[in-house]
């Protein structure tokens, strides 16, 4: 039996002379039992080759498995990190750029569009100015407050209100100027620094914001008018 297998192996491994090959091939056609042996030989080698193929595929799979998975993982992590970074950057950016101005605008909206007239009773010029301001007649209010600057008694209020007029009419340079003058006055509780900070925040150049911060810190430390807002804003800016 073994000789037949050797014989067949010789044929398929190319170790047979041409004339012998012809005899071999003829025998396949005529000798069924022999053809059966050849079929077994081919089948066996085919099955072995298949097994080899499967083994190799599995080996390669081991080689490949960690890589794509790691790559996929890295991709997901990178994508997630990028999105997170964008969100944080976007949030930070809006916070950074809008926040100081928004804080100032919010304060103006809530507290400065209407000034209480009951604080100093009497129908003096200051009250007329405030009325004009409250009714939205800013040019008239400006004129009145301007006129009052010459009066030492009303000067602090005149400076304050004039600054506020400039503030709501968005003339920040003038507003800052008036509030600076107000700050320089020897008052017990000077609202100047806070209003100046407000005007600086509205003008909003990076240098302004920095200066506003310093002023707010001063307001906070000295507990000047507006210090509650100053404390709050310092945490947010």
């Amino acid at each position: 039996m073994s000789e037949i297998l050797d014989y067949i192996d010789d044929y398929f491994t190319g170790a047979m002379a041409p004339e012998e090959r012809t005899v071999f091939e003829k025998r396949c056609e005529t000798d069924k039992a022999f053809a059966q042996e050849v079929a077994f030989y081919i089948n066996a080698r085919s099955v072995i080759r298949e097994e080899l193929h499967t083994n190799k595929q599995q080996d390669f799979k081991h080689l490949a498995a960690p890589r794509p998975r790691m790559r996929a993982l890295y991709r997901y992590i990178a994508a997630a990190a990028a999105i997170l970074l964008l969100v944080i950057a976007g949030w930070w950016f809006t916070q950074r750029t809008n926040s100081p101005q928004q804080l100032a605008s919010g304060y103006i909206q809530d507290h400065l569009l209407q000034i209480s007239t009951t604080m100093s009773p009497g129908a003096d010029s200051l009250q007329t100015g405030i009325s004009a301001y409250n009714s939205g007649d800013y040019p008239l209010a400006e004129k009145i407050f301007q006129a009052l600057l010459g009066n030492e008694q009303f000067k602090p209020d005149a400076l304050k209100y004039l600054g506020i007029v400039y503030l709501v009419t968005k003339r920040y340079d003038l507003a800052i100027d008036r509030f600076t003058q107000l700050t320089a006055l020897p008052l017990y509780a000077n609202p100047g620094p806070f209003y100046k900070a407000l005007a600086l925040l509205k003008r909003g150049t990076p240098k302004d914001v920095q200066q506003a911060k310093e002023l707010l810190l001063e307001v906070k430390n000295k507990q000047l008018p507006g210090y509650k807002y100053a404390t709050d804003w310092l945490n947010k800016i």
Partner: protein
Amino acid sequence: MIPSSAFNGKEEEILAGLQMGGPRRRAFEDLLYSSYQYLIREGERKYLLSGEDSGSAYSDAIISVIDNITNGRFEGRSSLKTYTTQIFFNKCVDLKRKSTTTKEKVHHHTYDLDPLVLMLPDNARNVVQQLIDNSNRSLLQRKLRELGEKCRELLLLFEDGYADREIAAMLSYNSADVVKVSRRRCLEKLKEKIQSFKIGYE
């Protein structure tokens, strides 16, 4: 044949390593595999295959490339990269076709003629192929697994294209002739297992 300088350094290294044979060939097979592994993603993208399918098409392609190189069928008409890519894309198309039509199943046998059968002239081939078609392949697969480890290793290495003298060196046999005799004895053992199973069954 294009001069070997047409290959880049890495390709040349892989080719030389695969052609050199011996125990170090495995390392170059792995190197070949990892060199073009990015093709798996291309298979997914270009042929809309799943990652697993594309991966298996890729290992199939690499196995074919190795087979062709070790058997001297790679003529170096193109770079190794182009050659591998081409074979891989063909495998992808095959896989795609297989999954979209059922024709493949019907004609499976005629498509998959064993290369050894093709060595026979027409008349002899018809007789033998018929016997192969009627044989019990799964029994053979089972019995192959029952063979001893040494036999299996020997048969697998031979089928992997290693020469008898290389196998002798790798598995510590005295000579190539001993390998040849042992290999034939292993095949004989396999045949006996099948026969005794058939007799027992009958």
